[in-house]
């Protein structure tokens, strides 16, 4: 670990090279752009219409939609974990014909416009869709929690898969070999050795996945306008009542998710980490 204080490092870096000066300036622009945009929204809301914020926090439909966002996001992350971690492990460990194609397919949701994803999901999971029709008598996707979850999994699973895969790739296969020659079948070696060593990557991947799921609007709104998740409610209020009606919900949404996000990072900061970085 480098023990030199950040400020000194920064000064030194700037002194050493004009490139660093210009890059630092540009980086600052990006930082301000993100930070100012979000903090300004919160500050304006708190200073100009604090009662509105309180009212929104007490409003039942607002509470319900934020809860639904968090809950559906969590379920989506669980689903992504269950299918994404095995995929990540195979991709990290095995070379096979067509591996590149498999990797590309798994990454497609990252580049597909989310409304396109929504149309695609609606086509296959809709009441007359390839999967929606045969499953219709057991499970309904359109305007229901399962629909929200398939939309969230579709757009967020790649984040978990890629992070997990990087974690597995960082682990020397010889460690698993050692476990096996000590008497562990592969599944035990995976559960008792590989998984714990990759835990930090899995956690980070899960947070990313969850955050991405909560923030999804385009795909979710297509397949399930109701029950309303946070972003849909914000959109609906914006369209029918304007900025002042939707902003309190937006501020609440960001405060809740940021709090959870920071809490998870703080808790995980105390974890000992074993994978080299």
């Amino acid at each position: 670990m480098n023990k030199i204080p950040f400020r000194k490092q920064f000064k030194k870096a700037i002194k050493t090279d004009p490139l660093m000066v210009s890059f630092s300036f540009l980086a600052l622009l990006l930082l301000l752009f993100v930070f100012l945009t979000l903090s300004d929204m919160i500050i304006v809301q708190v200073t100009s219409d604090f009662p509105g914020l309180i009212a929104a926090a007490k409003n039942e439909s607002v509470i319900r939609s934020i809860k639904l966002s968090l809950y559906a996001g969590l379920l989506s992350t669980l689903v992504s974990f269950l299918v994404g971690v095995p995929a990540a492990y195979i991709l990290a460990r095995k070379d096979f014909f067509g591996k590149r194609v498999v990797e590309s397919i798994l990454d497609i949701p990252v580049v597909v416009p989310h409304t396109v994803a929504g149309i695609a999901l609606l086509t296959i999971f809709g009441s007359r869709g390839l999967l929606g029709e045969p499953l219709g008598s057991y499970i309904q996707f359109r305007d229901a929690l399962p629909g929200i979850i398939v939309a969230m999994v579709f757009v967020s699973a790649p984040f978990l898969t890629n992070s997990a895969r990087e974690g597995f790739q960082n682990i020397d296969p010889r460690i698993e070999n050692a476990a096996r020659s000590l008497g562990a079948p592969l599944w035990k070696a995976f559960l008792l050795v590989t998984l714990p060593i990759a835990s930090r990557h899995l956690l980070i991947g899960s947070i990313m996945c969850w955050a991405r799921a909560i923030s999804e609007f385009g795909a979710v709104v297509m397949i399930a306008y109701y029950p309303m998740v946070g972003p849909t409610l914000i959109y609906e209020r914006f369209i029918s009542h304007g900025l002042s009606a939707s902003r309190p919900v937006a501020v609440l949404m960001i405060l809740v998710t940021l709090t959870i996000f920071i809490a998870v990072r703080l808790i995980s900061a105390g974890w000992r980490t074993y994978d080299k970085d």
Partner: protein
Amino acid sequence: MIRIKDLNRKWKEFTLEDIDLHVREGEYFVILGPSGAGKTLLLEVIAGFHPPDRGEIFFGSRNITELAPEKRNVAFVYQNYSLFPHLDVLKNIEFGMRMRGLRDRARVEKMAEYLNISHLFHRNIYTLSGGEQQRIAIARSLVTDPEVMLLDEPLSALDPQTQETSRKILKKIHSDSKLTVIHVTHDQTEARVMADRIAVMMDGRIVQVDTPEELFNRPINDKVAHFLGVENVMKGTVTANDGGVTLIEVDGTSIEAISDYAVGDMVHACLRPENVTLSKMRVKTSARNIFEGAIIETELLGALVRVKVDCGFMLNAFVTRQSAEELELKPGSHVIVSFKTTAVHVV
């Protein structure tokens, strides 16, 4: 004990071709070869991490070719030890026993005492030295009571002093446990010192299998000779030790060296050929080892000439081409061989 028949395997840039080997019960067997020869791959195939493309492996009369690695009862110690970083030392050692549903703290403690690692039980493995990590890796595999121990370059990641200790530990384990050991290395001195028998492996093939003496005296072809002929390793007995200055008798000739071995110990005196000086007549020198000998052969190696001299024992020396010409070094001619006491490395 271990019989390998017609084994073939291709993996990445490594290949194993038509490997036939027989390792005897309780033998300390060294596989020696340059890096890239496929030694580690062979070890991993024996352990079951890679299925062979063709061929069979037997432990005793048991055909284990298809057996999963966890059922082979093999101890595998990697060059980087592959300890589990998320477990402390004790849990690392207990891992194999846990996999077998055993809880025998007394056995773990006995093993830890034997390898002098009891004081490390609750340490994080990142805080350990290479030698300590190795002993833990060995303890971890030995507590499972394996039939075979496979060692992948066990000494090459260690500093010279730790190597010495580690060598002694491995020998002690072998003589105490009578375990069948296969030890892979690229270091011919290490092979010569440790092995009951050595298999030389080159380009995925076993080229020669012999006792160290036979192998080093009668390499099967020039490639093997070239690979082996770099260093002088002379087996002898310590006849005197006066405060570190040691006399070692090699084939009836006494060599002076520095070591802490006691009188009667069987040792190997190692001498790098570039540390051997050749001259036409006796000169006053600080070198304490001076012998007369006859040149057996000379071989041109680029700017250097390797001169093989019989001076009661066989010795290789490197001289420059110019020196060789000036001293008229030819097979049959007589030379004076000298080297310093401190140039001899005793193991």
